[in-house]
Protein backbone atom coordinates (compact mmCIF):
# COMPACT_ATOMS: atom_id res chain seq x y z
CA UNK A 1 0.00 0.00 0.00
CA UNK A 2 1.45 3.36 -1.04
CA UNK A 3 1.10 6.36 1.23
CA UNK A 4 -1.96 8.25 0.03
CA UNK A 5 -2.08 10.94 2.74
CA UNK A 6 -2.05 14.50 1.50
CA UNK A 7 -2.45 17.83 3.25
CA UNK A 8 -4.40 20.94 2.31
CA UNK A 9 -2.97 23.46 4.74
CA UNK A 10 -3.77 21.89 8.15
CA UNK A 11 -6.39 19.60 6.73
CA UNK A 12 -5.15 16.01 6.55
CA UNK A 13 -6.75 13.79 3.96
CA UNK A 14 -6.32 10.01 4.17
CA UNK A 15 -6.23 10.03 0.39
CA UNK A 16 -6.57 12.70 -2.32
CA UNK A 17 -10.08 11.66 -3.40
CA UNK A 18 -12.95 13.96 -2.44
CA UNK A 19 -16.47 14.37 -3.77
CA UNK A 20 -17.64 17.50 -5.55
CA UNK A 21 -20.42 19.52 -3.99
CA UNK A 22 -23.86 18.88 -5.42
CA UNK A 23 -23.00 15.46 -6.78
CA UNK A 24 -22.82 13.37 -3.62
CA UNK A 25 -25.66 14.74 -1.51
CA UNK A 26 -24.60 14.60 2.13
CA UNK A 27 -22.72 11.35 1.58
CA UNK A 28 -25.50 9.30 3.15
CA UNK A 29 -27.16 8.85 -0.24
CA UNK A 30 -24.12 6.82 -1.36
CA UNK A 31 -23.50 4.82 1.82
CA UNK A 32 -24.86 1.62 0.24
CA UNK A 33 -22.31 1.83 -2.56
CA UNK A 34 -19.04 3.04 -1.01
CA UNK A 35 -17.57 2.89 2.48
CA UNK A 36 -17.69 6.63 3.18
CA UNK A 37 -14.70 6.45 5.53
CA UNK A 38 -12.49 5.43 2.61
CA UNK A 39 -13.05 8.76 0.85
CA UNK A 40 -10.52 11.51 1.59
CA UNK A 41 -13.19 14.18 1.97
CA UNK A 42 -16.87 14.63 1.29
CA UNK A 43 -17.89 18.10 0.16
CA UNK A 44 -21.60 18.33 0.79
CA UNK A 45 -24.33 20.22 -1.04
CA UNK A 46 -24.05 23.99 -1.49
CA UNK A 47 -25.41 25.75 1.57
CA UNK A 48 -26.63 29.34 1.84
CA UNK A 49 -27.65 31.59 4.72
CA UNK A 50 -31.32 31.50 3.72
CA UNK A 51 -33.24 28.55 2.21
CA UNK A 52 -33.34 28.52 -1.60
CA UNK A 53 -35.86 26.78 -3.87
CA UNK A 54 -33.49 26.72 -6.84
CA UNK A 55 -34.57 27.11 -10.46
CA UNK A 56 -37.59 25.64 -12.20
CA UNK A 57 -37.59 22.24 -13.88
CA UNK A 58 -36.10 21.28 -16.35
CA UNK A 59 -32.71 21.61 -14.75
CA UNK A 60 -30.84 19.01 -16.74
CA UNK A 61 -29.72 18.38 -20.31
CA UNK A 62 -27.62 15.44 -21.40
CA UNK A 63 -24.78 16.43 -23.73
CA UNK A 64 -21.91 14.66 -25.46
CA UNK A 65 -19.86 13.05 -22.68
CA UNK A 66 -21.40 15.34 -20.12
CA UNK A 67 -24.43 17.17 -18.86
CA UNK A 68 -25.69 20.67 -18.24
CA UNK A 69 -27.43 21.56 -15.01
CA UNK A 70 -29.12 24.69 -13.72
CA UNK A 71 -30.15 23.53 -10.25
CA UNK A 72 -29.46 26.95 -8.73
CA UNK A 73 -28.26 26.07 -5.23
CA UNK A 74 -31.48 24.54 -3.93
CA UNK A 75 -30.95 23.97 -0.20
CA UNK A 76 -32.79 24.41 3.08
CA UNK A 77 -30.41 27.00 4.48
CA UNK A 78 -27.54 26.86 6.95
CA UNK A 79 -29.71 26.72 10.09
CA UNK A 80 -31.52 23.65 8.80
CA UNK A 81 -28.14 22.13 7.94
CA UNK A 82 -26.77 22.74 11.44
CA UNK A 83 -29.86 21.43 13.21
CA UNK A 84 -30.96 18.56 11.00
CA UNK A 85 -28.21 17.41 8.65
CA UNK A 86 -25.09 17.88 10.76
CA UNK A 87 -26.22 15.44 13.47
CA UNK A 88 -26.61 12.76 10.79
CA UNK A 89 -23.19 13.24 9.21
CA UNK A 90 -20.94 14.32 12.06
CA UNK A 91 -19.79 10.79 12.81
CA UNK A 92 -18.81 9.87 9.28
CA UNK A 93 -15.11 9.10 9.64
CA UNK A 94 -13.70 11.41 6.99
CA UNK A 95 -13.41 15.15 6.38
CA UNK A 96 -16.95 16.45 6.01
CA UNK A 97 -16.62 19.77 4.21
CA UNK A 98 -19.44 22.22 3.58
CA UNK A 99 -19.72 24.17 0.35
CA UNK A 100 -20.86 27.70 1.18
CA UNK A 101 -22.57 30.18 -1.15
CA UNK A 102 -24.04 33.63 -0.81
CA UNK A 103 -25.22 36.74 -2.62
CA UNK A 104 -22.95 39.26 -0.87
CA UNK A 105 -19.67 39.07 1.06
CA UNK A 106 -21.72 39.51 4.22
CA UNK A 107 -24.03 36.55 3.56
CA UNK A 108 -21.07 34.32 2.67
CA UNK A 109 -19.43 35.31 5.95
CA UNK A 110 -22.60 34.87 8.00
CA UNK A 111 -23.07 31.36 6.58
CA UNK A 112 -19.41 30.45 7.15
CA UNK A 113 -19.57 31.74 10.72
CA UNK A 114 -22.39 29.33 11.52
CA UNK A 115 -20.53 26.41 9.95
CA UNK A 116 -17.44 27.36 11.97
CA UNK A 117 -19.29 26.42 15.17
CA UNK A 118 -19.63 22.79 14.04
CA UNK A 119 -16.75 20.80 15.56
CA UNK A 120 -16.76 17.99 13.02
CA UNK A 121 -16.62 20.24 9.97
CA UNK A 122 -12.89 20.95 9.54
CA UNK A 123 -13.14 23.00 6.36
CA UNK A 124 -15.40 24.88 3.99
CA UNK A 125 -15.36 25.30 0.26
CA UNK A 126 -16.42 28.84 -0.64
CA UNK A 127 -18.34 28.70 -3.90
CA UNK A 128 -17.75 31.87 -5.90
CA UNK A 129 -18.49 30.10 -9.15
CA UNK A 130 -22.09 28.85 -9.36
CA UNK A 131 -23.26 29.83 -12.86
CA UNK A 132 -26.94 29.22 -12.12
CA UNK A 133 -27.96 31.97 -9.71
CA UNK A 134 -28.88 35.51 -10.65
CA UNK A 135 -27.15 37.42 -7.90
CA UNK A 136 -23.95 36.35 -6.20
CA UNK A 137 -22.49 32.98 -7.07
CA UNK A 138 -20.35 33.29 -10.15
CA UNK A 139 -20.61 37.08 -10.15
CA UNK A 140 -17.94 37.12 -7.44
CA UNK A 141 -15.78 34.55 -9.16
CA UNK A 142 -15.25 36.37 -12.44
CA UNK A 143 -13.32 39.37 -11.17
CA UNK A 144 -10.31 39.59 -8.88
CA UNK A 145 -12.03 42.30 -6.82
CA UNK A 146 -15.20 40.23 -6.40
CA UNK A 147 -13.27 37.11 -5.41
CA UNK A 148 -11.10 39.08 -3.00
CA UNK A 149 -14.12 40.71 -1.34
CA UNK A 150 -15.72 37.36 -0.52
CA UNK A 151 -12.50 35.68 0.63
CA UNK A 152 -11.65 38.66 2.83
CA UNK A 153 -15.09 38.71 4.47
CA UNK A 154 -15.08 34.96 5.12
CA UNK A 155 -11.47 34.91 6.34
CA UNK A 156 -12.36 37.40 9.09
CA UNK A 157 -14.85 35.00 10.64
CA UNK A 158 -13.62 31.56 9.56
CA UNK A 159 -10.33 30.27 10.92
CA UNK A 160 -10.34 26.63 9.82
CA UNK A 161 -9.34 25.51 6.34
CA UNK A 162 -10.91 27.61 3.59
CA UNK A 163 -10.92 26.28 0.04
CA UNK A 164 -12.23 28.68 -2.61
CA UNK A 165 -13.97 27.13 -5.63
CA UNK A 166 -13.15 28.96 -8.83
CA UNK A 167 -15.07 29.52 -12.03
CA UNK A 168 -13.59 28.56 -15.39
CA UNK A 169 -15.76 31.20 -17.07
CA UNK A 170 -13.01 33.84 -16.88
CA UNK A 171 -10.25 35.27 -19.01
CA UNK A 172 -7.43 34.31 -16.67
CA UNK A 173 -8.20 31.92 -13.83
CA UNK A 174 -4.67 32.22 -12.41
CA UNK A 175 -5.29 35.92 -11.67
CA UNK A 176 -8.44 35.04 -9.69
CA UNK A 177 -6.53 32.34 -7.80
CA UNK A 178 -3.81 34.83 -6.87
CA UNK A 179 -6.44 37.28 -5.61
CA UNK A 180 -7.89 34.56 -3.35
CA UNK A 181 -4.44 33.58 -2.10
CA UNK A 182 -3.63 37.21 -1.31
CA UNK A 183 -6.72 37.49 0.91
CA UNK A 184 -5.81 34.39 2.90
CA UNK A 185 -7.51 31.45 1.17
CA UNK A 186 -5.87 28.17 2.23
CA UNK A 187 -6.55 26.45 -1.07
CA UNK A 188 -8.41 26.85 -4.33
CA UNK A 189 -10.50 24.19 -6.05
CA UNK A 190 -11.19 24.23 -9.76
CA UNK A 191 -13.01 24.03 -12.03
CA UNK A 192 -16.69 24.61 -11.34
CA UNK A 193 -18.91 24.04 -14.38
CA UNK A 194 -18.47 25.74 -17.73
CA UNK A 195 -21.45 27.81 -18.84
CA UNK A 196 -23.26 26.27 -21.75
CA UNK A 197 -26.55 25.82 -23.53
CA UNK A 198 -28.56 23.05 -25.17
CA UNK A 199 -31.48 23.35 -27.56
CA UNK A 200 -34.60 21.26 -28.24
CA UNK A 201 -34.98 21.76 -31.99
CA UNK A 202 -38.53 20.33 -32.09
CA UNK A 203 -39.78 22.84 -29.53
CA UNK A 204 -37.35 25.52 -30.77
CA UNK A 205 -36.54 26.21 -27.15
CA UNK A 206 -33.59 25.89 -24.77
CA UNK A 207 -33.53 22.57 -22.91
CA UNK A 208 -32.99 24.31 -19.56
CA UNK A 209 -35.53 26.44 -17.71
CA UNK A 210 -33.18 29.40 -17.36
CA UNK A 211 -31.68 28.92 -20.85
CA UNK A 212 -28.11 28.32 -19.69
CA UNK A 213 -26.48 25.89 -17.31
CA UNK A 214 -23.16 24.51 -16.15
CA UNK A 215 -21.41 21.83 -18.18
CA UNK A 216 -19.73 18.96 -16.35
CA UNK A 217 -18.52 15.46 -17.11
CA UNK A 218 -15.65 14.03 -19.18
CA UNK A 219 -16.24 16.67 -21.88
CA UNK A 220 -14.69 19.37 -19.66
CA UNK A 221 -11.65 17.43 -18.45
CA UNK A 222 -9.03 18.82 -20.86
CA UNK A 223 -10.11 22.37 -20.03
CA UNK A 224 -9.98 21.63 -16.32
CA UNK A 225 -6.53 20.05 -16.55
CA UNK A 226 -5.11 23.04 -18.35
CA UNK A 227 -6.55 25.42 -15.75
CA UNK A 228 -5.33 23.32 -12.82
CA UNK A 229 -1.86 23.33 -14.35
CA UNK A 230 -1.98 27.11 -14.82
CA UNK A 231 -3.19 27.80 -11.28
CA UNK A 232 -0.82 25.31 -9.65
CA UNK A 233 2.03 27.21 -11.28
CA UNK A 234 0.63 30.60 -10.23
CA UNK A 235 -0.01 30.14 -6.49
CA UNK A 236 1.79 28.59 -3.54
CA UNK A 237 -1.33 27.32 -1.77
CA UNK A 238 -2.51 23.77 -2.53
CA UNK A 239 -4.82 23.30 -5.50
CA UNK A 240 -7.76 20.90 -5.58
CA UNK A 241 -8.52 19.69 -9.11
CA UNK A 242 -11.85 18.68 -10.53
CA UNK A 243 -13.67 18.55 -13.83
CA UNK A 244 -14.65 15.34 -15.59
CA UNK A 245 -12.68 12.90 -13.44
CA UNK A 246 -14.13 9.43 -13.98
CA UNK A 247 -11.33 7.03 -13.12
CA UNK A 248 -7.92 6.74 -11.47
CA UNK A 249 -6.06 7.67 -14.64
CA UNK A 250 -7.96 10.95 -14.86
CA UNK A 251 -7.22 11.63 -11.19
CA UNK A 252 -3.50 10.95 -11.63
CA UNK A 253 -3.41 13.38 -14.56
CA UNK A 254 -4.73 16.11 -12.26
CA UNK A 255 -2.25 15.22 -9.53
CA UNK A 256 0.61 15.36 -12.03
CA UNK A 257 -0.62 18.76 -13.23
CA UNK A 258 -0.27 20.05 -9.69
CA UNK A 259 -3.45 19.18 -7.81
CA UNK A 260 -2.85 18.09 -4.21
CA UNK A 261 -6.27 16.48 -4.10
CA UNK A 262 -9.10 15.91 -6.55
CA UNK A 263 -12.87 15.94 -6.49
CA UNK A 264 -15.16 13.54 -8.29
CA UNK A 265 -18.47 14.99 -9.41
CA UNK A 266 -20.67 13.94 -12.29
CA UNK A 267 -19.05 10.50 -12.46
CA UNK A 268 -20.91 9.65 -9.21
CA UNK A 269 -24.13 9.69 -11.25
CA UNK A 270 -22.86 7.11 -13.71
CA UNK A 271 -21.17 4.87 -11.15
CA UNK A 272 -22.18 5.53 -7.54
CA UNK A 273 -19.15 3.47 -6.40
CA UNK A 274 -16.61 5.40 -8.49
CA UNK A 275 -14.92 7.19 -5.55
CA UNK A 276 -13.58 4.02 -3.99
CA UNK A 277 -12.49 2.71 -7.40
CA UNK A 278 -10.51 5.89 -8.05
CA UNK A 279 -8.88 5.74 -4.62
CA UNK A 280 -7.94 2.07 -5.07
CA UNK A 281 -6.84 2.74 -8.63
CA UNK A 282 -4.45 5.50 -7.58
CA UNK A 283 -2.87 3.13 -5.07
CA UNK A 284 -2.61 0.37 -7.67
CA UNK A 285 -0.90 2.70 -10.14
CA UNK A 286 1.57 3.93 -7.52
CA UNK A 287 2.42 0.36 -6.47
CA UNK A 288 2.77 -0.78 -10.07
CA UNK A 289 5.21 2.06 -10.69
CA UNK A 290 7.14 1.63 -7.46
CA UNK A 291 6.04 4.99 -6.09
CA UNK A 292 5.79 4.84 -2.29
CA UNK A 293 4.05 8.16 -1.68
CA UNK A 294 1.38 9.91 -3.73
CA UNK A 295 3.01 13.25 -2.92
CA UNK A 296 5.89 12.25 -5.22
CA UNK A 297 3.66 12.56 -8.29
CA UNK A 298 1.88 15.77 -7.30
CA UNK A 299 3.10 18.46 -9.69
CA UNK A 300 5.32 15.98 -11.54
CA UNK A 301 4.66 17.88 -14.75
CA UNK A 302 6.76 21.02 -14.60
Amino acid sequence: MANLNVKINDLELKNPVMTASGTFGYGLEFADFVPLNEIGGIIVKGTTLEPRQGNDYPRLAETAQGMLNCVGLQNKGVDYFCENIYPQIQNIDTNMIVNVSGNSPETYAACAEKIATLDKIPAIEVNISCPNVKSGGMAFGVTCEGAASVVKAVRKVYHKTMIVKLSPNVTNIADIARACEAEGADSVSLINTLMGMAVDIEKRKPMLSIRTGGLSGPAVKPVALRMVYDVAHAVKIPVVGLGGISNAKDAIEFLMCGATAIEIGTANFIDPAVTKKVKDGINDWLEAHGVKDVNEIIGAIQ
Partner: protein
Amino acid sequence: MKKYILDLQVVSVEALSDKHVLIKLTDSKPLPEMLPGQFVEVRVDHSQDTFLRRPISIHFVDREHNQLWLLIASIGEGTRQLSKLQKGDKLNCVLPLGNGFTMPTSKSQKILLVGGGVGVAPLLYFGKLIKDYGAEPVFLLGARSASDLLEVDLFRKYGRVYITTEDASVGEKGFVTDHSILREEKFDQISTCGPKPMMVSVARYAHSENINCEASLENMMACGLGACLCCVEKTTKGNLCVCKEGPVFNINQLSWQI
Protein backbone atom coordinates in the same frame (compact mmCIF):
# COMPACT_ATOMS: atom_id res chain seq x y z
CA MET B 1 -34.02 -0.25 1.70
CA LYS B 2 -30.51 -1.22 0.74
CA LYS B 3 -29.51 -0.26 -2.79
CA TYR B 4 -27.23 -2.26 -5.05
CA ILE B 5 -25.19 -1.92 -8.24
CA LEU B 6 -25.63 -5.19 -10.10
CA ASP B 7 -24.57 -6.54 -13.48
CA LEU B 8 -27.77 -8.37 -14.32
CA GLN B 9 -27.90 -10.92 -17.08
CA VAL B 10 -30.38 -10.64 -19.93
CA VAL B 11 -32.52 -13.78 -20.09
CA SER B 12 -34.71 -12.67 -22.99
CA VAL B 13 -35.73 -9.65 -25.04
CA GLU B 14 -39.19 -9.85 -26.55
CA ALA B 15 -40.64 -7.30 -28.97
CA LEU B 16 -44.18 -6.40 -27.85
CA SER B 17 -44.80 -3.84 -30.58
CA ASP B 18 -42.73 -1.93 -33.12
CA LYS B 19 -41.40 0.26 -30.30
CA HIS B 20 -41.78 -1.73 -27.10
CA VAL B 21 -39.61 -4.52 -25.74
CA LEU B 22 -39.90 -6.66 -22.62
CA ILE B 23 -36.50 -7.41 -21.13
CA LYS B 24 -36.18 -10.15 -18.53
CA LEU B 25 -33.11 -10.04 -16.31
CA THR B 26 -31.67 -12.39 -13.73
CA ASP B 27 -28.73 -12.72 -11.36
CA SER B 28 -26.75 -15.61 -9.91
CA LYS B 29 -27.88 -14.53 -6.44
CA PRO B 30 -31.47 -13.87 -5.36
CA LEU B 31 -32.54 -10.42 -6.58
CA PRO B 32 -32.87 -7.76 -3.86
CA GLU B 33 -36.15 -6.73 -2.29
CA MET B 34 -38.06 -4.42 -4.65
CA LEU B 35 -41.39 -2.64 -4.25
CA PRO B 36 -43.92 -1.95 -7.00
CA GLY B 37 -43.49 1.63 -8.21
CA GLN B 38 -39.74 1.67 -7.55
CA PHE B 39 -37.33 1.97 -10.46
CA VAL B 40 -33.91 0.98 -11.73
CA GLU B 41 -31.19 3.23 -13.15
CA VAL B 42 -29.68 1.32 -16.06
CA ARG B 43 -26.39 2.12 -17.71
CA VAL B 44 -26.48 2.44 -21.48
CA ASP B 45 -23.32 0.94 -22.95
CA HIS B 46 -21.99 1.11 -26.49
CA SER B 47 -23.50 4.48 -27.33
CA GLN B 48 -21.62 7.64 -28.22
CA ASP B 49 -24.76 9.70 -27.82
CA THR B 50 -25.78 8.88 -24.28
CA PHE B 51 -24.00 9.71 -21.06
CA LEU B 52 -26.41 9.35 -18.16
CA ARG B 53 -28.17 6.26 -16.90
CA ARG B 54 -31.82 5.78 -17.82
CA PRO B 55 -34.49 5.40 -15.12
CA ILE B 56 -36.78 2.45 -15.92
CA SER B 57 -39.78 1.28 -13.88
CA ILE B 58 -39.74 -2.10 -12.22
CA HIS B 59 -42.32 -3.83 -14.40
CA PHE B 60 -42.48 -7.17 -12.65
CA VAL B 61 -40.50 -9.28 -10.22
CA ASP B 62 -40.79 -13.00 -10.84
CA ARG B 63 -39.44 -14.51 -7.63
CA GLU B 64 -40.00 -18.07 -8.81
CA HIS B 65 -37.54 -17.60 -11.68
CA ASN B 66 -35.49 -14.88 -9.94
CA GLN B 67 -36.27 -12.41 -12.72
CA LEU B 68 -36.69 -8.66 -12.95
CA TRP B 69 -38.73 -7.48 -15.92
CA LEU B 70 -38.33 -4.09 -17.59
CA LEU B 71 -40.76 -2.76 -20.18
CA ILE B 72 -39.01 -0.33 -22.48
CA ALA B 73 -40.41 2.07 -25.07
CA SER B 74 -37.85 3.22 -27.64
CA ILE B 75 -38.30 6.94 -27.49
CA GLY B 76 -34.73 8.20 -27.59
CA GLU B 77 -31.18 7.05 -28.18
CA GLY B 78 -30.82 5.47 -24.73
CA THR B 79 -33.95 3.38 -24.89
CA ARG B 80 -33.22 2.45 -28.53
CA GLN B 81 -29.86 1.05 -27.39
CA LEU B 82 -31.52 -0.83 -24.55
CA SER B 83 -34.02 -2.40 -26.91
CA LYS B 84 -31.10 -3.87 -28.87
CA LEU B 85 -29.91 -5.93 -25.88
CA GLN B 86 -29.64 -9.64 -26.51
CA LYS B 87 -29.89 -12.78 -24.44
CA GLY B 88 -26.69 -13.24 -22.44
CA ASP B 89 -25.76 -9.54 -22.39
CA LYS B 90 -25.10 -7.84 -19.07
CA LEU B 91 -27.04 -4.78 -17.97
CA ASN B 92 -25.56 -2.67 -15.19
CA CYS B 93 -28.37 -1.60 -12.86
CA VAL B 94 -28.59 0.55 -9.72
CA LEU B 95 -31.60 -0.63 -7.75
CA PRO B 96 -34.08 -0.42 -6.17
CA LEU B 97 -34.66 3.35 -6.23
CA GLY B 98 -37.42 5.64 -5.03
CA ASN B 99 -40.62 4.90 -3.16
CA GLY B 100 -43.31 2.50 -4.29
CA PHE B 101 -47.09 2.70 -4.45
CA THR B 102 -49.11 2.48 -1.25
CA MET B 103 -50.36 -1.03 -0.62
CA PRO B 104 -54.01 -1.52 0.37
CA THR B 105 -54.70 -1.58 4.09
CA SER B 106 -57.71 -3.88 4.01
CA LYS B 107 -58.64 -6.94 1.95
CA SER B 108 -62.03 -5.42 1.18
CA GLN B 109 -60.41 -2.61 -0.82
CA LYS B 110 -60.77 -2.23 -4.55
CA ILE B 111 -57.80 -0.43 -6.12
CA LEU B 112 -58.03 1.08 -9.58
CA LEU B 113 -54.73 1.06 -11.47
CA VAL B 114 -54.78 3.46 -14.43
CA GLY B 115 -52.00 3.22 -16.98
CA GLY B 116 -51.37 4.90 -20.30
CA GLY B 117 -48.86 3.83 -22.95
CA VAL B 118 -45.63 2.48 -21.46
CA GLY B 119 -46.86 3.90 -18.13
CA VAL B 120 -48.62 0.60 -17.58
CA ALA B 121 -45.18 -0.83 -16.67
CA PRO B 122 -45.19 -0.49 -12.85
CA LEU B 123 -48.86 -1.49 -12.55
CA LEU B 124 -48.39 -5.18 -13.38
CA TYR B 125 -46.24 -5.95 -10.32
CA PHE B 126 -48.38 -3.71 -8.16
CA GLY B 127 -51.52 -5.52 -9.33
CA LYS B 128 -49.98 -8.87 -8.52
CA LEU B 129 -49.07 -7.81 -4.99
CA ILE B 130 -52.55 -6.35 -4.41
CA LYS B 131 -54.05 -9.67 -5.47
CA ASP B 132 -51.56 -11.64 -3.34
CA TYR B 133 -52.53 -9.51 -0.37
CA GLY B 134 -56.19 -10.39 -0.91
CA ALA B 135 -57.54 -7.06 -2.10
CA GLU B 136 -58.85 -6.45 -5.62
CA PRO B 137 -56.85 -4.69 -8.34
CA VAL B 138 -58.83 -3.36 -11.32
CA PHE B 139 -56.85 -2.22 -14.35
CA LEU B 140 -57.88 0.61 -16.63
CA LEU B 141 -55.44 0.79 -19.54
CA GLY B 142 -55.35 3.44 -22.21
CA ALA B 143 -53.60 3.49 -25.57
CA ARG B 144 -53.79 5.30 -28.90
CA SER B 145 -54.65 2.13 -30.74
CA ALA B 146 -54.85 -1.64 -30.31
CA SER B 147 -51.25 -2.03 -31.44
CA ASP B 148 -50.04 0.15 -28.54
CA LEU B 149 -51.76 -1.97 -25.90
CA LEU B 150 -49.23 -4.04 -24.03
CA GLU B 151 -49.58 -7.35 -22.20
CA VAL B 152 -53.34 -7.23 -21.68
CA ASP B 153 -53.44 -10.97 -21.05
CA LEU B 154 -50.83 -10.68 -18.32
CA PHE B 155 -52.82 -8.00 -16.55
CA ARG B 156 -55.93 -10.23 -16.76
CA LYS B 157 -54.15 -12.82 -14.58
CA TYR B 158 -54.44 -10.47 -11.63
CA GLY B 159 -57.70 -8.61 -12.10
CA ARG B 160 -60.39 -7.24 -14.37
CA VAL B 161 -59.04 -5.16 -17.26
CA TYR B 162 -60.84 -2.23 -18.87
CA ILE B 163 -59.48 -0.59 -21.99
CA THR B 164 -59.84 2.65 -23.87
CA THR B 165 -58.26 3.47 -27.22
CA GLU B 166 -58.33 6.80 -28.96
CA ASP B 167 -59.29 5.18 -32.28
CA ALA B 168 -61.81 2.74 -30.74
CA SER B 169 -59.86 -0.25 -32.08
CA VAL B 170 -60.23 -2.02 -28.71
CA GLY B 171 -62.38 -1.26 -25.67
CA GLU B 172 -64.19 2.01 -25.31
CA LYS B 173 -63.29 4.99 -27.48
CA GLY B 174 -61.56 7.94 -25.87
CA PHE B 175 -59.24 8.57 -22.94
CA VAL B 176 -59.08 6.52 -19.76
CA THR B 177 -61.14 9.10 -17.91
CA ASP B 178 -63.96 8.64 -20.45
CA HIS B 179 -64.42 4.97 -19.52
CA SER B 180 -67.86 3.98 -18.22
CA ILE B 181 -66.36 1.93 -15.37
CA LEU B 182 -65.58 5.20 -13.60
CA ARG B 183 -69.29 6.01 -13.49
CA GLU B 184 -70.42 2.48 -12.67
CA GLU B 185 -68.10 1.53 -9.83
CA LYS B 186 -66.60 3.16 -6.78
CA PHE B 187 -62.93 2.57 -5.91
CA ASP B 188 -61.08 2.93 -2.62
CA GLN B 189 -57.81 4.10 -4.13
CA ILE B 190 -56.46 5.04 -7.55
CA SER B 191 -52.84 4.67 -8.64
CA THR B 192 -51.78 5.99 -12.00
CA CYS B 193 -48.78 6.08 -14.28
CA GLY B 194 -48.57 7.42 -17.80
CA PRO B 195 -48.36 10.68 -19.76
CA LYS B 196 -48.75 13.70 -17.51
CA PRO B 197 -51.97 15.03 -19.14
CA MET B 198 -53.56 11.62 -18.53
CA MET B 199 -52.43 11.54 -14.91
CA VAL B 200 -53.73 15.07 -14.34
CA SER B 201 -57.14 14.01 -15.71
CA VAL B 202 -57.15 10.94 -13.47
CA ALA B 203 -56.14 13.09 -10.50
CA ARG B 204 -58.98 15.51 -11.29
CA TYR B 205 -61.47 12.62 -11.36
CA ALA B 206 -60.12 11.20 -8.08
CA HIS B 207 -60.18 14.61 -6.45
CA SER B 208 -63.78 15.26 -7.52
CA GLU B 209 -64.87 11.83 -6.25
CA ASN B 210 -62.85 12.21 -3.05
CA ILE B 211 -60.79 9.08 -3.76
CA ASN B 212 -57.22 8.79 -2.48
CA CYS B 213 -54.93 8.93 -5.52
CA GLU B 214 -51.25 8.60 -6.24
CA ALA B 215 -49.33 9.22 -9.43
CA SER B 216 -45.92 8.00 -10.57
CA LEU B 217 -43.87 10.75 -12.26
CA GLU B 218 -41.00 10.43 -14.69
CA ASN B 219 -39.10 13.74 -14.61
CA MET B 220 -35.73 13.75 -16.32
CA MET B 221 -33.08 12.46 -13.91
CA ALA B 222 -29.34 12.26 -13.55
CA CYS B 223 -28.32 10.49 -10.33
CA GLY B 224 -31.51 8.72 -9.26
CA LEU B 225 -30.36 9.01 -5.65
CA GLY B 226 -31.47 12.48 -4.54
CA ALA B 227 -28.01 13.98 -4.91
CA CYS B 228 -28.10 16.14 -8.04
CA LEU B 229 -31.52 17.77 -7.49
CA CYS B 230 -32.26 17.84 -11.23
CA CYS B 231 -35.57 15.93 -11.35
CA VAL B 232 -37.53 18.17 -9.01
CA GLU B 233 -41.31 18.53 -8.97
CA LYS B 234 -43.13 21.43 -7.32
CA THR B 235 -44.99 20.17 -4.27
CA THR B 236 -46.66 21.48 -1.15
CA LYS B 237 -43.26 20.97 0.53
CA GLY B 238 -41.35 22.89 -2.13
CA ASN B 239 -39.22 21.33 -4.87
CA LEU B 240 -38.82 17.62 -4.18
CA CYS B 241 -36.72 15.06 -6.06
CA VAL B 242 -38.87 12.67 -8.06
CA CYS B 243 -36.11 10.06 -7.79
CA LYS B 244 -35.88 10.05 -4.01
CA GLU B 245 -39.09 11.51 -2.60
CA GLY B 246 -41.09 9.99 -5.49
CA PRO B 247 -41.50 8.76 -8.12
CA VAL B 248 -44.89 8.01 -6.54
CA PHE B 249 -46.60 11.06 -5.02
CA ASN B 250 -50.01 11.49 -3.48
CA ILE B 251 -51.82 13.96 -5.76
CA ASN B 252 -52.55 16.21 -2.76
CA GLN B 253 -48.82 16.86 -2.51
CA LEU B 254 -48.52 18.05 -6.11
CA SER B 255 -49.15 21.53 -7.45
CA TRP B 256 -51.23 20.25 -10.35
CA GLN B 257 -54.33 22.25 -11.31
CA ILE B 258 -57.01 19.79 -10.30
